[in-house]
């Protein structure tokens, strides 16, 4: 039998398997290192880092929903300086590519951040232009023009592989995917969370202090899969698929739909061992279906 290879190369980021972490659900990797071998992941995407520290949104920040959850963490993070000085060095002790997810209020923030994060051992950058939990109305990723311009500016200041993370809260995700590609993205990732809401009927207040939040988990998988399918037909750069993945079957669906790699988000909270289970499942699937490498699966949906 031929040797199975789970390696993937996403925009120059070499991963030993196509299973990554989804930003914001794995902290800076360190918390989970007490429970699992974080080197099992193909790559680790950090919680969003911003230029300055952010205290995030008030409580409550989390609501459970049917087969999903709403969060409005609001990008709480210690800021770029502490990330570079305290978090990254510890994370770099592990043999796993590290991708920093970054966000900002405007183009300048992103450009500065991308500048700061050069030459410090990162394997790539993911631009979070799609977080629903910050003040400004309208996300970058809800408009093709702003997406194009932003990606283009960041592209100019970094040689790192650039992943652009898209929001599902749009009429046509292919337009934004195309704009990101044109702007110089090396890959796109999707979906970020769907904007949702929940109300406590007794207090008559929204259950999240921030009123709205981001919906994630198995509930959103059909939407995520459809968008990965649409976007990957549109662009020729690799697509990282995420949104509701729990089982290896889910992960394989995303690969078939057109993803070159997948990311695990909410499922980390439910079953932190999922990465290994998915890798095992993908291996069995490849054997059974005579696929030798991940790219044999990517986009194979008929």
């Amino acid at each position: 039998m031929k040797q199975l290879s789970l390696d993937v190369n996403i925009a120059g980021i070499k991963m030993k398997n196509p299973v990554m972490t989804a930003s914001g659900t794995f902290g800076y990797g360190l918390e989970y290192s007490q429970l699992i071998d974080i080197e099992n992941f193909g790559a680790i995407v950090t919680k969003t880092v911003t230029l300055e520290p952010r205290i995030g949104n008030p409580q409550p920040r989390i609501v459970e929903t049917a087969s999903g959850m709403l969060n409005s963490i609001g990008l709480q993070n210690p800021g770029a300086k502490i990330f570079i000085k305290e978090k990254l060095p510890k994370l770099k002790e592990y043999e796993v590519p590290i991708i920093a997810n970054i966000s900002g209020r405007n183009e300048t923030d992103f450009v500065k951040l991308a500048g700061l994060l050069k030459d410090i051992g990162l394997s790539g950058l993911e631009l979070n232009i799609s977080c629903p939990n910050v003040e400004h109305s309208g996300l970058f990723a809800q408009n093709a023009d702003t997406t194009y311009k932003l990606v283009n500016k960041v592209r100019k200041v970094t040689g790192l592989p650039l992943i652009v993370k898209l929001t599902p809260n749009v009429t046509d995700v292919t337009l934004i995917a195309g704009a990101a590609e044109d702007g110089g993205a090396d890959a796109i990732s999707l979906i970020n969370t769907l904007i949702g809401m929940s109300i406590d009927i007794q207090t008559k207040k929204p259950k999240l202090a921030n009123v709205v939040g981001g919906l994630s988990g198995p509930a959103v998988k059909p939407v995520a899969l459809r968008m990965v399918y649409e976007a990957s037909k549109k662009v020729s750069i690799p697509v990282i698929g995420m949104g509701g993945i729990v089982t290896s079957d889910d992960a394989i669906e995303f690969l078939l739909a057109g993803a070159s790699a997948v990311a695990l988000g909410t499922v980390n909270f439910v079953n932190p061992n999922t990465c290994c289970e998915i890798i095992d499942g993908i291996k069995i699937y490849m054997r059974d279906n005579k696929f030798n490498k991940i790219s044999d699966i990517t986009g194979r949906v008929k």
Partner: protein
Amino acid sequence: MKIFSVKKEIIENKKISAGCYRITFESRKIACMAKPGQFLHIKCSDTYDPLLRRPISIHSVENNVIEILYKVVGRGTGLLSEKSCGDSIDVMGPLGNGFDYQSLVTCHLSPILVGGGIGIAPLYFLARKLVEKYSNVTVLIGADAKHNILCVDKLKKLGCRVKVSTNDGSTGINGTVVNLLKKELSPENVKLKIFACGPIPMLKQINRLVSVYNVSSQVSLEKRMACGIGACMGCIIKVKNGYKRVCKDGPVFDIKEVIWEDL
């Protein structure tokens, strides 16, 4: 690894009072690491609904046998209560920091444990550890009514001094556990350390009380959790110098550290 995610067979899931159950299971790994005040993160359903785990304190550890004590308040705990002996339980833990009771000796402090309602759950484990070293462990237990006063007999068996209060006076003093605590405190007697767990209003009252006497106190807090491990920032509370995560930096906090107005 210091934290484990395991599936174990339930040895017993016993109803111990109206709406309260105790699950017993064996896990050598968790038992070895567990400290009083820590909790387990439990998957209550095999399906995606409800999706998230539920945090439940470690109630007791004896040899490799772990007990949790929980009250049915919603869907997760409801599903948990339906599990039978032989069914499997999916737990992650031990999580959180636990009570700091090591300093008692050096500081010559006597421990007072204050539990309101199901808040007694983590305190029993603490009491077990304390009686190994101290003879003067006091436990104050409050509830709405007699049938919701839990653990009295087994705490007495450990050798603890146990005082009880109920809101309806059906057993113990007529009042709250804070009334009981008041009686223990006096300007002369500040060589105490309080460990409290219970509803927020109770903890707030305790805060006011101990700030008068300046008694060292630790409280166990609750917040809705997603990861339970410190990664998602879902469970933060405001503390004097910023935000802390209940799951990782807590659930036990020094009473002075907490911004009580924000809870």
